C-alpha cells in the first residue's frame, strides 16, 4: 500500500468515526417521550381489516371512537365520555320516522321498535390531521367501504353479527356473493333453503343458530360440537352413539384432509398439532371449524366408531358414509327434539351449513347523514343506550379518498387497498396522536396531533390522585405524552436489557423475570377473567376403583383432608414461582367481573363479594386463631396456614383410618394423586407441580407428627406420604369429566360482564364439563340455606336452583332506564340486583367451602413501568386497566430522564427490583 492509499484510508476512517460521534440527536429535552416495544411488527392497521392485537396497535393512538370509557373520579370504575360524538346517542321514536325511512328499513315489520333508531350528534371540532373537517358524510362513505362486498373486509361482521346490527349491513356485505350459512333459520317448512346450492356442509366448530336456539343466547359456545359433547350422555343410548359417531367421523375426516394438505390452520390449530394426531379423540374442539361437504364422506375412506366410546382400535371402527352420517344426524336431532323441524324428515339438515348465493342487494344501508353533523343509525335489532355506547367506542372512519386511491384489483378478484399499511403516506390520523414514522419490522413513531380537538376543548383535563406523582392534587391535561416511540424488539432478553438501561418505559415480564422483579413496586398486572384452580376428585367410589396395593386415593373424599391440602399452599409463593404475573386468589371470580355493567362496579368490591373470603377462610388462612386449640397462630394471607393445614390433614386422616368402609386409607399406605396436565414438560407446570408437592409433603409430615402425638400412629409406624403423578393428557378436561383423575388444574373464565353465568360450570347439574367429579351431578341435591332477600327468613335451595334463580329467574332490567325513571323502578332494580349478588356470593362461598375447587391464582400478565411515568390508579379496572395513556403522568421529561439514567450509571435494574410498593 503506498502512502497515498494509506492517507485516503486514514481520512475515510476518521470521517466515519467523526460522523459516528457527532450523529444528529433526535431528542428534544422538553418532550415527554414514551419508549415502548412490540415483539412482532404489524403489517397493517386498517380499521376495516385488522385481525391481531398488533394490527390494532397504531389506531389505538391515532383514532378514537364516538364515545370512550375513562377512569371515574373514585378511580374504581369507568365513566363514558363523548369524543367524536358531541352527545350521547338520542333514541328516535318509531313514530317520528318518515314513510320513506320505514319503507327502506322496516317495511316487513311495519315500523321500527323502540331503541332501533338512534341519532348521533357529531363533534364539530373533529378534523383529520391535515385539518380537513370530519363530517357525517365521511362516516357514511367509510361504512360503505367497510361493507363493500368487493373488498370483503374482515371487520364487516362487527356491524351485523353482534349487539350493533345495522339494517341491511349483512345483505350489502354479502350482496351477490356465495357464502356458507347455517341452514337453521333459512330452511323453509319443506326442508329447503331458497337459493341454496344443494350442497350441505358439516362444521362442528362453527357457531350455528340451531345450537344457540337450544342453549340460549348467553352460551359461551354455540357450536355443534358443544351440543354433541354436552348432551351426548344425557339422552338415550341411540343418541349417545350417534353423537360419538358424528364426532369421531368428522374428526377422522379432518385427519384425512390434513394429510391432503387442505386444512387452513388458524391461531388455534397448527400443522405441528395435527402431526401429533393419531386418532379422532386427539382432535381438539378448537380445531373443528372446517366446512366439510357431506358428499366428501362418500369420496374419502372416512371411518368412525362402532360403539359408544372413543376406542379407535381396528375392531371398533367402521366406514362412515354420507348416508350413515345423515342417519346419525337425524337420530341425534330427533332425540334432542328441540327446534322447529326437529322431527321432520329433513331434520338432519338442521345443524348443518349450506352454500347460499346471496341476492344482489340494491337497498339502502342503515346509516345516513341527516345533516353535516348528525348521523342516524337504523338498526335491525334493539340496543340499549349503554350497549350502543360500548359498540360505538370503536370507529369505522377512514379517509375515503386516500382509501380508494390506494385500491387495486386483487389477484383473486375483488379489490384490495393499501390504506393504513406499510407507510405513513398511506394513512391519515384523526385521534390524539398522528403517525409520523412507520418502518415495518423496526420502528413506529406517533406524535401529538396538534389538530386534535381534545387539546383545545377544555374537556380533557383530570385531577391527579397519586402520592407518587409530582402532580398529585393538581388538575392537568390528559394525554401528557408527546411522542410514542415503538421499537420492534424480538428478543425478550434484549427488551429487558433496554428497559434496565432506561431506553424503554415498560417491559412484559416472564416467569424468570419474576424472580428479580416479582416484588417490585413498579410491577403491575393486567388480569384475565380466568381463575386457575386445583379441581379434586372427591367421589369415594371412583377413587376406590382407581387405587390398588399400597396406594391410597380415597382420602380425597374427606372434606377435612381437602381443606388441609388447600391451606397448605402458599398462593403468593405459587404466583411468584409458577406463573408470570398471575395473582394469588382465593376466589372463583376475580376482580374483573362486573356487578354493574353501566358503572363498572366490580363484583369483588361489592359488600357481597367482600364477604366470601370471611365465609370460607375466616378461621383458616389469615386467622390468628388455632381452630382446634384456640391458640394464637402466625398470621398468613390468601388462604395459607401451614399449621392449620397439618391439623386438618391429621383430622381427615384420623377419620378415614377409623372408617370401616372398604377402600379407606390404612396405615402404611401412601397417597398418590394422578395429575393429568396438558404438557408435563412445560416450565410453568413443572414449577407448579414441584411447589405443590413440596407444600403438601411438608404439611403431611407435620400431620404425621400430630397423629403420633395423638396416639393414632405408633412411634414405629411409617408416616403417610403424598405425591402427585403428572400424566401428559392434552384432553384432561374430558378425563376429569369422566372421573379419570385425582386432581387437575382447571381454568374457567367467562365474560366479565356476566359473573352469574360463569357459576354454571360449578353449580348447574346438567353442565357436563364440571371438573369437580365428586360434586358433578349432585348440585341438584346439595343444599344451601341463607336469606337471599334479606327479609329475615332463610331460604333453602339446591346449588342448581340458586344458580337458576340468579342467572335466569331474577332479571334486573336496564340500569340506565331505572335510573332515568327513578323512584319505585330504581328501587325494584336495586332490590333484584342485591338479591342476585347475595345469591352469587353464597353460591361462590358454598362451592369454595367444599374444597373440591381450590383457587390458586387469578391469571394475568405482569409488566414493569419505568420511573418516568405514573399510572392514574394502582387498582386494575375492567376496560380501563390502570387509567391508560389518557391519564398517565410524566414525572420526567426526556432531559431529566436522561440525567436520572446517568445518575444510575445507565443501569436501573437494582432500582427497579428494589422499588417499594406504592400506596
Amino acid at each position, binding site marked *: 500500500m503506498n502512502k497515498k492509499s494509506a492517507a485516503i*484510508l486514514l481520512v475515510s476512517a476518521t470521517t*466515519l468515526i*467523526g*460522523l*459516528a*460521534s457527532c*450523529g*444528529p440527536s*433526535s431528542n428534544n429535552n422538553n418532550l415527554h417521550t414514551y419508549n415502548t416495544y412490540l415483539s412482532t411488527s404489524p*403489517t*397493517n392497521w386498517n380499521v376495516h*381489516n385488522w385481525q391481531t392485537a398488533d394490527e390494532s396497535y397504531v389506531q389505538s393512538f391515532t383514532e378514537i371512537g364516538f364515545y370512550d370509557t375513562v377512569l371515574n373520579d373514585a378511580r374504581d370504575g369507568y365513566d363514558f365520555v363523548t369524543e367524536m360524538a358531541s352527545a350521547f346517542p338520542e333514541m328516535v321514536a318509531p313514530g317520528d320516522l318518515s314513510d320513506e325511512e320505514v319503507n327502506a328499513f322496516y317495511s316487513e315489520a311495519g315500523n321500527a321498535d323502540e331503541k332501533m333508531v338512534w341519532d348521533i350528534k357529531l363533534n364539530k371540532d373533529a378534523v383529520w390531521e391535515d385539518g380537513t373537517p370530519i363530517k357525517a358524510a365521511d362516516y357514511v362513505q367509510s361504512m360503505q367501504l367497510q361493507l363493500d362486498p368487493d*373488498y*370483503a*373486509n*374482515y371487520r364487516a361482521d362487527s356491524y351485523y353479527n353482534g349487539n350493533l346490527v345495522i339494517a341491511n349491513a349483512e345483505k350489502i356485505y354479502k350482496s351477490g356473493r*356465495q357464502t356458507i350459512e347455517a341452514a337453521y333459520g333459512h330452511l323453509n317448512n319443506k326442508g329447503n333453503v331458497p337459493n341454496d346450492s344443494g*350442497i350441505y356442509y358439516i362444521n362442528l366448530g362453527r357457531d350455528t343458530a340451531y345450537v344457540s336456539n337450544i342453549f340460549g343466547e348467553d352460551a359461551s359456545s354455540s357450536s355443534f360440537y358443544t351440543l354433541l359433547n354436552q348432551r351426548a350422555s344425557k339422552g338415550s343410548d341411540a343418541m349417545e352413539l350417534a353423537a360419538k359417531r358424528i364426532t369421531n367421523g368428522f374428526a377422522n375426516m379432518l385427519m384425512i384432509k*390434513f394429510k*391432503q*394438505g*387442505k*386444512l*387452513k*390452520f*388458524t391461531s388455534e390449530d397448527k*400443522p405441528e398439532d395435527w402431526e401429533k394426531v393419531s386418532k379422532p379423540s386427539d382432535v381438539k374442539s378448537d380445531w373443528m371449524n372446517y366446512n366439510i*361437504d357431506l*358428499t*366428501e364422506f362418500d369420496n374419502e375412506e372416512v371411518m368412525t366408531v362402532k360403539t359408544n366410546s372413543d376406542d379407535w382400535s381396528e375392531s371398533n371402527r367402521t366406514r362412515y358414509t354420507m348416508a350413515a352420517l345423515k342417519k346419525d344426524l337425524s337420530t341425534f336431532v330427533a332425540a334432542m327434539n328441540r327446534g322447529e323441524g326437529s322431527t321432520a324428515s329433513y331434520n338432519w339438515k338442521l345443524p348443518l351449513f349450506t*352454500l347460499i348465493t346471496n341476492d344482489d342487494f340494491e337497498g339502502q344501508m342503515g346509516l345516513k347523514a341527516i345533516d353535516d353533523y348528525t348521523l342516524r343509525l337504523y338498526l335491525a335489532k334493539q340496543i340499549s343506550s349503554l350497549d350502543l355506547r360500548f359498540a360505538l367506542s370503536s370507529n369505522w372512519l377512514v379517509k375515503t379518498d386516500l382509501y380508494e386511491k390506494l385500491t387495486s384489483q*386483487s*389477484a*383473486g*378478484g*375483488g379489490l*384490495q387497498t*393499501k390504506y393504513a*399499511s*406499510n*407507510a405513513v403516506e398511506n394513512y391519515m390520523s384523526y385521534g390524539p396522536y398522528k403517525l409520523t*414514522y412507520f*418502518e*415495518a*419490522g*423496526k*420502528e413506529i*413513531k406517533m406524535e401529538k396531533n396538534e389538530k386534535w380537538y381534545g387539546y383545545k376543548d377544555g374537556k380533557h383535563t383530570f385531577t391527579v390522585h397519586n402520592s407518587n406523582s409530582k402532580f398529585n392534587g393538581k388538575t392537568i391535561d390528559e394525554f401528557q405524552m408527546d411522542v410514542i416511540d415503538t*421499537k*420492534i*424488539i*424480538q*428478543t425478550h432478553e*434484549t427488551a429487558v*436489557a*433496554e428497559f*434496565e*438501561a432506561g431506553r424503554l418505559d415498560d417491559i412484559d415480564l416472564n416467569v424468570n423475570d419474576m424472580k428479580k422483579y416479582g416484588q417490585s413496586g413498579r410491577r403491575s398486572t393486567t388480569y384475565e377473567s380466568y381463575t386457575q384452580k386445583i379441581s379434586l376428585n372427591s367421589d369415594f367410589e371412583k377413587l376406590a376403583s382407581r387405587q390398588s396395593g399400597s396406594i391410597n386415593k380415597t382420602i380425597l373424599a374427606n372434606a377435612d383432608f381437602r381443606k388441609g391440602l388447600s391451606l397448605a399452599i402458599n398462593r403468593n409463593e405459587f404466583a411468584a414461582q409458577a406463573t408470570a404475573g398471575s395473582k394469588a386468589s382465593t376466589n372463583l371470580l376475580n376482580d374483573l367481573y362486573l356487578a354493574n355493567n353501566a358503572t363498572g362496579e366490580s363484583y369483588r368490591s361489592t359488600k357481597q363479594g367482600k364477604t366470601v373470603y370471611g365465609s370460607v377462610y375466616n378461621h383458616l388462612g389469615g386467622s390468628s386463631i388455632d381452630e382446634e386449640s384456640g391458640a394464637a397462630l402466625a398470621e398468613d394471607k390468601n388462604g395459607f396456614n401451614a399449621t392449620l393445614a397439618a391439623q386438618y390433614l391429621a383430622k381427615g386422616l384420623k377419620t378415614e383410618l377409623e372408617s370401616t368402609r372398604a377402600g379407606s386409607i390404612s396405615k402404611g399406605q401412601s397417597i398418590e394423586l394422578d395429575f393429568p396436565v396438558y404438557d408435563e414438560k412445560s416450565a410453568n407446570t413443572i414449577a407448579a407441580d414441584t411447589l405443590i408437592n413440596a407444600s403438601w409433603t411438608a404439611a403431611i409430615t407435620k400431620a404425621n407428627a400430630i397423629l403420633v402425638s395423638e396416639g393414632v400412629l405408633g412411634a414405629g409406624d411409617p408416616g403417610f406420604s403424598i405425591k402427585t403423578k403428572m400424566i401428559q393428557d392434552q384432553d384432561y378436561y374430558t378425563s376429569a369429566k369422566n372421573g379419570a383423575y385425582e386432581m387437575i388444574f382447571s381454568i374457567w373464565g367467562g365474560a366479565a360482564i356476566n359473573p352469574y353465568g360463569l357459576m354454571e360450570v360449578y353449580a348447574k347439574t346438567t353442565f357436563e364439563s364440571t371438573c369437580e367429579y365428586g360434586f358433578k351431578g349432585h348440585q341438584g341435591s346439595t343444599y344451601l340455606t341463607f336469606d337471599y332477600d334479606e327479609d329475615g327468613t332463610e331460604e333453602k335451595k339446591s346449588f342448581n336452583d340458586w344458580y337458576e334463580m340468579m342467572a335466569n329467574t331474577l332479571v334486573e332490567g336496564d340500569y340506565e332506564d331505572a335510573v332515568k325513571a327513578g323512584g319505585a323502578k330504581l328501587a325494584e332494580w336495586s332490590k333484584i340486583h342485591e338479591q342476585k349478588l347475595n345469591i352469587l356470593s353464597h353460591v361462590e362461598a358454598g362451592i369454595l367451602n367444599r374444597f373440591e375447587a381450590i383457587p390458586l391464582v387469578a391469571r394475568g400478565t405482569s409488566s414493569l413501568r419505568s420511573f418516568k411515568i405514573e399510572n392514574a390508579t394502582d387498582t386494575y379496572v375492567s376496560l380501563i386497566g390502570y387509567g391508560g395513556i389518557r391519564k398517565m403522568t410524566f414525572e420526567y421529561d426526556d432531559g431529566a430522564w436522561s440525567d436520572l439514567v446517568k445518575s444510575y450509571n*445507565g*443501569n436501573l435494574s437494582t432500582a427497579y427490583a428494589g422499588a417499594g410498593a406504592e400506596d
Partner: protein
Amino acid sequence: MSKTKQTLIYILQRLALMVLTFLVIFFICFALVRMLPVNPGQGMNDPETFWKMMVNQGRYRKVGNEYVAIPVLEQLGTFLKQLFDPTFKGSRLGYAYHVSGYWLESPASVLFSKMPPTILINIYSVIFSVPLGIGIGIFMALKKNKWEDTVLSILIMVTISVPSFVYAFMLQYLFAYVWQILPAQTASASAGWLSGEMFKSMLLPVLSMSFGSIAGYARYTRAELTEVLTSDFMLLARTKGLTRTQATVRHAFRNSLVPIFPMLLGEIISVLSGSLIIENIFGVNGVGAVYLNAITTRDYDVFQFVSMFYISIGLIGTLVVDISYGLVDPRIRMGSSK
C-alpha cells in the same frame, strides 16, 4: 487453440454448468415447496379469494366444490409460462401473503426493500475485516514461531471455534449495557443509511460479523506468506540486495495474494446475504428477518424466492472466484487442453 479462446470456452462451460445447477436446485425447491399444504386462512380476507388466486396462478383447480392441487410438473409449466409471458398481469413470482407490509406484494420487492441495512453491514464488515485480517496474517508470518505468532494463533483458533452469536451477545452486553458506549440496536431507516448515527449503531453487528472473517484471513495469509517467504526466489531477492521489507512487500506479499484475492471477491459478492442470528440480536431490519419470517409464517413464495436468490449469489460467487484465479495469476491455465 489460442489461450483467449480456450478461456472463453471455459467460462461458457462454467456458465452453462451454473445455469444447469441453478435449474436443478430450482426444480427440487419448487417441487418440494409446491407439495407443502397451503394456508388459505393466512393474509387474505376470506379463503375464497385465496383459492381464486391459487386457481389464477395455476396451482389448484376447482373440481366440484373442492380445490385440487395440480401436478407439480404442470404447475412448473404454468409458472415458467407466466414468468416469460409479457402479457401476464400480476406477480410472476407469486405473492407475499404475510411477510409483506402490503398483503399481496411480490416476494422480490419484499426482499429488495430489506436489502440496504444488510448490504451496509456487510460492506462495513469487509472494510473492517479484510485489512485487519491480512495485516495480522502478515505480522504472524513475519513473526513465525515466535511468541507473538503463538499467542495470535491461539486467539485465532479460539475465535474461529466460537460461533458469531456468542460474540454478538458478549459485545452487546459489554458495549451497550456495561460501558454504554454503543447502542444495542441498529438505528431505524429514518436516521439515514449513511449517517453517523446509523454507522455507530451498526458497529456492534459489524464487529460481531467480522471476528470470524478476521481470524480466517489472518490464518490464510499467514499460511500463504510463510510458504512464499521460505521460497528460493525470496532468498534470491535478499541476495540481490533487497531489504527484508522490500523483499516481503514486492515479492512475497504479492505472490501470497494470489489465493487470497479470490476469497475477497467471494466476500464482496456475499455482502448481499444476511445473518439470521446477528440481525435478530441487533434488530437489523434486513433480509435475514425476511427469510426467517417467511419460514415461520409459511410464506412459501417468499421462502422460495429468497432461497433461489441466495443460491444464485452463491453460484455466481463461486464462478467469479474460479475465473478470477486465472485472471489474477496468468500461470493458472483455465480449461484443459489435450
